[in-house]
């Protein structure tokens, strides 16, 4: 198995929101989806996931409903709210800008050049 990457502080909420884009899911399948999309490289602790879910729900970014799982067991399903969708859009664009800026800095090849 390849070396794990830990989830950066603050990005877990965004990832959880993303996972719910295509429809309601329960906690286990959110975890499974994150593992699968990262080719098992991203390590999300079960103990971190659930507080994140509950927090997002308290912030009205996702809502929950009890339903039946694929194996016919009672499970709590989470779904994105409109506010959650908006938050995901904003966070995603912010994240992309952040990554590109950091990347530009880290890929610098020489000291600063004076422009004026």
């Amino acid at each position, binding site marked *: 198995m390849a070396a794990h990457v830990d989830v950066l502080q603050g990005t877990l909420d965004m990832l959880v929101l993303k996972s719910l884009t295509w429809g309601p899911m*329960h*906690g286990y399948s959110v975890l499974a989806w994150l593992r699968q999309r990262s080719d098992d490289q991203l390590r999300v*602790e079960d*103990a*971190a996931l*659930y507080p994140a*879910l*509950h927090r997002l729900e308290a912030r009205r970014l996702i809502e929950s409903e009890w339903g039946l799982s694929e194996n016919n067991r009672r*499970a709590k399903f989470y779904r994105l709210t409109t506010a959650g969708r908006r938050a995901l859009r904003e966070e995603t664009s912010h994240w992309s800008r952040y990554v590109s800026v950091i990347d530009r800095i880290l890929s610098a090849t020489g000291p600063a050049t004076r422009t004026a």
Partner: protein
Amino acid sequence: MRSARRYLRFFGPDPAADLDDELAFHLDMRVAEYVRLGMSEPDARRRIAEEAGDMDAARHECLEIDQRELRRQDMREAFGTWMRDVRVALRSLRRSPGYFAGVVATLALGIGATTAIYSVVHGVLLRPLPYPEPDRIVQLFQLDADARKGQWSDPNFADVRERLRGFDAVAQFTPAATLSVAGAGEPFRAGASAVSGDFFRVLGVRPLRGRTFAPEELVPGGSPAVVVTESFWRNQLGGSEDVIGSRLTIGRTTYSVVGVMERALAFPAGAGIYLPKELNAPSPFRTGHNWQALARVNAGTSMQSAQDAISRVARELKQQHGDDTMMSDATFVPLRDQLVGKSRKVLLLLLAASGLLLLIACANVVNLLLARATARRGEIAVRLALGAGRARLVAQFLAESAVVAGVGGALGVVLALVGVRALLRLEPGDLPRAGEIGTNLPVLGFALLATVLVALALGVIGALRGGRGALREVMAEGQRSMSGSGAARRLRDTLVVAQIALALVLLVGAGLLGRSFLAVFNQYPGYRTEGVLAMDVTLSGGDTTVLASNVRFYDEVLERGRALPGVMHAGAVNALPLAPGGVSSGMFIIQRSIAERLTFDDFRALSKIPERVGESQFRIVGGDYFRAMDIPLLRGRLFDGQDAPDAPHLALISESLARSRWPDEDPLGKIIQYGGMDGDPRPFTIVGIVGDVREANLEARPLPTFYASYRQRPRMAGRMNLVFRAQGDPAALSAPLRGIVHELRPQVPPRFRTMQAVMTESLASRRFVLVLIGVFGAAALLLASLGVYSVIAYLVAQRRREIGVRMALGARPESVRRMVVREGVVLAGVGVVVGALFAMAGRRYVEGLQYGVRATDVPSFTAVSVLLVTVAALASWFPARKAAAIPPADVLRS
């Protein structure tokens, strides 16, 4: 197990159980995943436990989030319900606008009056002084052998300051005295206080511009400097930026303004200018008690040990100086208590009065509320029958009373804002710290608290009474009976009795104060005020040449004033009766002969022999003072031109001084001297006895008084009131007199008052309290009569049927009317008796405020009782007339 719990959830959310279900499902799914890959279940669980992290902590965190969320939801829901109740209440109140307006107006009156008075109480009594650590600022007093508080002499103060430990700073000051000041423009009058160097340090105030006194300004003969207050700078000096270094001329000295103090400094009252005390050499007389003293207690010293310290120092000094000092001990009083002083009693009385008014208002509102609740019993019963919970009904009652109290409270605050402004305009000017009164957070908090309490009281009483037994009764009795239950009736009667009782307390208070006012007003002051104009001028002293020219100025103004048309007499006095300021008193020695020469030591020795000493007020007069004021000459003669400076010095004494000091002798011809109190050791020969004058106020007994002539004793004639008796309106004299003064001394600004105005002003604070209590009393009377009216009107509506039957059986309209009116009169009678008891119990609140009447004044009690019963009878008469007009046929047919 789990499924059972699911059904239990029907009764409400259970976040812990839900969370456990959710996490258990998660774990099962994870285990199943590993088992699918071929792991045994125990291995899978172990593996997951390693990977998953601290699940207990996660569970705990989730639970916290969920519970917080749940609480928030509950609150939001409760708020939503409450808003709905409020909307319902508003709708139902809109349907009965008369009731709504009545209740709101009544509450606004009560809350407004209480809040207005409270804002005065807060500003004057409760608010800390606007200085840093104000509780440590104290006013020092020396105590004489009889433990009477007194002012300080320079030597005593200097010794105490040198030895005292545990104080940060001590300072001397004088109360503000009026001086004539000339600046760049017209001369004006201003309050000035002499203060010693540490005065500002004691208070902890800083200059806004410039600085306080520098060391070279704090020595005798140093460069003359003044510090001014912020308001003096703005109002008298135009608030100009280049005020520092500008010059003010007071008398013959020109001072330069070195500082403007920050706004907080408003002490001593009336001071605009501060002169450095140290500019003049300290007095060597240990018994010249001319200074007040202020100190700041060190932060590390307890008040008790500070008290002990000053007392110890004073007693040491007594031992050292013995009879040379009159100080036996010393003490201090927190400055705030000293400032507030006499106002406390009056303000607390007013607060109590406004509180009574609020209670009466509440009783009225509860009464209206009950009537309304009873009227709505049909509606309530239907709601109960339809399954509305009692709690919901109570909640709705609370919402309604919250709306009513809220609107009433808001209007009350508006009323209070207006009221405080009116109060301050009415205020006689002797209220300490009046500048600090205003509407601020604590005052608004008080209004809010009053409103909330009122809302709760109304809601709870209304809900308890209005909701109780409604269903059963209405269902059983049908629409026919709308009569309130006996308990409700009793409660309403009690409320009316309470209202009458409280109104009686207020009105008796107003009556006592009113009769006291009349008694004071009719008190003959010892002179005739009609037709007299007083002109207040302040000149500055100096050497004998200056003093002589002052006397010439007075003489000339009097002479030219007397020549004005209509002027009959003109005279002068240094302290005008009934006007504050300028009084002095002292101890005198009776000499054996005019030739007897007494040294200071002789004086001190003689002052211990009772038959050689006396004490009196000391006044300087001139011209025809006694004729101008119409103070009778009882024996002997007036000065009448015999008072040349070099002639033997003459004196007149008042009747009470003659009677108290020489009861069995003839005082005429007696030789007395005041030990150089005014810097002149020459003795006086008493040549006449004049009538007594009420000096300090109309209430206090005339003080034994001594009069000398300003020609012979000009030193204490710096500030004089020239009085002119005229035929016709004395105020018309002010213009020509002002012209005369301007011609003679353009730099002296005179102030004119008629003696009538002076006397009226001396009654101002008494009138202030009387007007307020009177207004409260009138409002209470109005509210109480409304209370009686509403209860009796309601009673008539209830007993409509019974009355109809009586009339059908031959009862005459008069007897029906009499029966109804009797109900009102009985309630009022009980109220009067209860109120009289209350008033007797609370009479110590007016003690000291009444004059010429006793707190148990029978006429006041009788008049008020009769008034209340009459008003109650009148208030019942309207419903009684309605009752007598009930057509029996209609009632019987229905």
